[in-house]
């Protein structure tokens, strides 16, 4: 009802604007949760920045349409999962940049990795190639060992991709599923690390995985 008027349905005086707004906000929350069949709003431990996530999702969709065209025989029976891991921590010294990507343990225990791609964004690449090392924890101690080393050439600014399937596959057999990437970057290159939280060009890893079918035992 208009301000100061009475409500035609129940005859009560119109609520104060603040009260009415709070009631509508509460109604909006309840309506969305009910329609999503959620008892309460989910808690998200450390969501990546929205811009970074939307950029990654768009790149993924572009890759999926290419992949589907290139490999029409891909699994169509719904057991195919797409895993996305956005950079969770990154440190850079003079020439070296360390990137860390986490995967949740519930996923690693129940899936097999089919392929995995690392996406890096370079605003100002240089002429020489960079060295990309995939590190994994040393079983004997606390250090890291080099699982693979690659020379990566970047011709122009924008997104660059690197196949990290083998490294992620071996990662999924370990206790703490965390991929560490070391980049050795010449002096004149910019850093692939995001300048701040609003920067949407965060490095990320996309993995195509297949849900492991439960182990079936046939008794005779």
């Amino acid at each position, binding site marked *: 009802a208009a301000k100061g008027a009475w409500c035609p349905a129940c005859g009560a005086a119109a609520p104060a604007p603040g009260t009415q707004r709070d009631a509508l906000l509460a109604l909006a929350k309840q309506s969305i949760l009910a329609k999503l069949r959620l008892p309460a709003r989910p808690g998200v431990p450390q969501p990546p920045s*929205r811009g970074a996530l939307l950029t990654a999702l768009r790149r993924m969709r572009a890759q999926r349409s290419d992949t589907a065209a290139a490999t029409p025989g891909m699994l169509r029976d719904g057991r195919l999962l797409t895993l996305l891991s956005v950079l969770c921590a990154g440190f850079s010294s003079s020439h070296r940049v360390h990137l860390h990507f986490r995967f949740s343990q519930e996923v690693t225990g129940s899936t097999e990795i089919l392929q995995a791609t690392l996406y890096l964004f370079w605003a100002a690449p240089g002429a020489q190639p960079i060295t990309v090392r995939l590190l994994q924890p040393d079983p004997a101690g606390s250090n890291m060992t080099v699982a693979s080393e690659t020379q990566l050439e970047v011709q122009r600014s924008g997104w660059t991709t690197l196949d990290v399937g083998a490294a992620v596959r071996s990662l999924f057999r370990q206790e703490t599923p965390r991929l560490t990437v070391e980049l050795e970057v010449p002096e004149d290159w910019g850093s692939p690390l995001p300048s701040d939280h609003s920067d949407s060009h965060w490095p990320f890893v996309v993995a195509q995985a297949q849900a492991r079918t439960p182990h079936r035992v046939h008794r005779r």
Partner: protein
Amino acid sequence: GVDCGADSRMCCRQEFFVDFKEIGWEDWIIQPEGYHMNYCAGLCPLHMAGIPGLAASFHTAVLNRIKVASAAAAVDSCCVPTQRRPLSLLYYDRDSNIIKTDIPDMIVDSCGCT
């Protein structure tokens, strides 16, 4: 349909936008940034009964006169949504899966009298 103005009394659509950041939901709802929870408000006098919005035409004018004349058949008429569209949401579920869902009939586009 008619959108409510500052002092609208007749059946109209009242716009109401919920900013997810304002209610602290921007961390689990990735897209969109808010929800247009528009609603219908206002009175439905007899002459507006059965008209989805003010269709200013000759036929409406004639119908109005007939309804006013037959006030005896007074009937309750309510201001309700006559056009709605889905709300598309991209959000995290409890297991940090990214889900896209289209919830039907969540956004009111126009109102009218029953």
